[in-house]
């Protein structure tokens, strides 16, 4: 590939930039882009990151390669020590888990996610469920949300199934507002909610209302692309910038960490050939 970085690699680097050094961060399962972002952060700007692997709960593992499923001994290779399930979630409940990474088939303008069901009243599509996301979304310091399926092409009838929606049919993971408009702090939740969303079209943050706000775009996406593929009208940062491309060393690191290119499975087929630089 002649491009400096693929879309997947650029997304991984963007997610990695949301991770601060010296914090405890947990990647869940079924999230290759996020798993790689944590390993990139740990090996670049955040050497003192406490990296907790999803599904194995190993701390600071060094996987020989990224596996297609998360609960695999390869993902646990050379973990310094392992937590059990209760210790992991206790840390979050006690306000000691700094960051978690969540997604959904629907993500609403306040950053709530639905991974449970489509159909607010009648069940139309049963999704796999949220794992521990419901608990963690209330408890964890901050969340980085991500999706590789922001682009939602219209079907034969011209109808889009938006990934970024006005309101989730079902709130599995709580963002900055409940379905009836309450803020998590009013409920006594400790978590600070989502502070970033990284998609295949751009990067967002959340303003003081807790509303999603576009802050940067890829070299090949526009504000119009974002508007067209989003059910609500996203707010715009004063200056919408371009997402920085990962350094060549970071790209090389990602390719070393994921020789099977597992992370590309998260991308929509047309996005697998996108590259920049």
């Amino acid at each position, binding site marked *: 590939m002649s491009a400096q970085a693929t879309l997947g690699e650029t997304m991984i680097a963007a997610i990695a930039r949301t991770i601060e050094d010296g914090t405890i961060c947990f990647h869940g399962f079924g999230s290759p882009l996020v798993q790689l972002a944590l390993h990139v952060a740990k090996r670049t700007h955040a050497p003192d990151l406490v990296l907790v692997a999803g599904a194995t709960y190993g701390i600071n593992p060094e996987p020989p390669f990224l596996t*297609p499923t998360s*609960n695999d001994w390869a993902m646990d290779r050379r973990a310094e020590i392992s937590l059990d*399930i209760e210790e992991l*979630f206790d840390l979050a*409940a006690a306000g000691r888990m700094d960051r978690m990474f969540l997604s959904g088939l629907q993500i609403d303008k306040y950053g709530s996610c639905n991974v449970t069901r489509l159909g607010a009243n009648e*069940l139309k599509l049963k999704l796999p*469920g949220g794992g521990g996301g419901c608990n963690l979304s209330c408890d964890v310091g901050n969340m980085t949300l991500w999706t590789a399926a922001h682009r939602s092409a219209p079907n034969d009838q011209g109808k889009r199934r938006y990934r970024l929606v006005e309101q989730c049919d079902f709130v599995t993971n709580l963002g900055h507002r409940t379905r009836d408009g309450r803020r998590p702090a009013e*409920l006594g939740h400790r978590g600070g909610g989502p502070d970033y969303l990284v998609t295949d079209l751009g990067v967002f943050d959340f303003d003081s209302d807790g509303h999603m706000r576009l802050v940067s775009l890829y070299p090949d996406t526009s504000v119009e692309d974002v508007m067209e593929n989003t059910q609500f009208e996203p707010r715009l940062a004063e200056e919408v910038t371009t997402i920085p491309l990962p350094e060549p060393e970071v790209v090389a690191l990602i390719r070393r960490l994921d*020789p*099977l290119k597992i992370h590309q499975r998260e991308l929509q087929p047309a996005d697998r050939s996108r590259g920049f630089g």
Partner: protein
Amino acid sequence: MTKTSKYGNGAKGPGAPIHTGADKRVELDELISHVEDGNTVAVGGGLSSREPMAVLRALIRKGVKDLNVVGSAHGIDIDMLCAGGCVSESSESYVGFEQDFGMAPNYRRACESGEVKVNDSCCYTVVQQLRATILGLPFMPVRSIRGTSVFDMHPEYKTMTCPYTGEELALVPAVQPDVAVIHAQYGDAHGNLRIEGPPVADILFAKASKKVIASVEEIVSNERLHELGGANIPYFYVTALSEVPMGAHPTACYPFYAYDREHTKDYYQLAKQGADAFKAGYLDPFVHGCGTHEAYLEKIGGEETARHLGSWKDGDEAWMALYGDEGVPA
């Protein structure tokens, strides 16, 4: 033999029974006799690892019905039980094939048709509900989940004002599974179990459930269990166990064998085609058509498959080769 405490006769007493028999080794058919129609069942393992698949296949063959399955993050285990018509309610936190294949087709069909009541939970909620049972308490508080649709879905969840701080908390009731079904690497005749690698929720399941039935790769002496590093589930929680080599297949049971991705891919593709295709292409040949676990092992390729899946030990290249067949799916 199951002896109950001096306080009562097991299920009716204040605590769950303890299981004190000297030799709990049984055949697979006897092992599964502990699961009855309508039971709440905690299936051990998680995602593509250490699922008690041989026991689940035997339960499907037997025609067990109306199970309520509770747990954290699961995949092929619950999906297959749903296809087998064994489940009437799911209180799992996740049932799917991650980014590898995506949604669980049989589970989806069963939920969407109404055959399985959707009662999704979330991991820490389940942990707290099991802990309540382990601690002998009627409920546990959690700060999270209030304000989500998961809370609204469960009329049994309550809220209370903390008498010390005035904060509002959610309360989740104790959950005591009738049976925990666990696959471990090793066990001894007495029922001590040694799980290697992530135990997921299995240790909590074992402590909270009325009965624990276990399949293990190898039954060894207690002395050998110590040499291996010791047990992590005490025998008196365990009702019965069977030696079932490759008993987690097609999920992984390291260090014996890795995840059989090829088999799982075939499973998934048949499941995706529909209930009839799945029954004809998978359930009939691999579950109903294999009257014993030995017949199943032969069906999946016997020694050769065992060697292939054990080849992860030959180095990273060999390990990767188990997963790197077809690149990115369309």
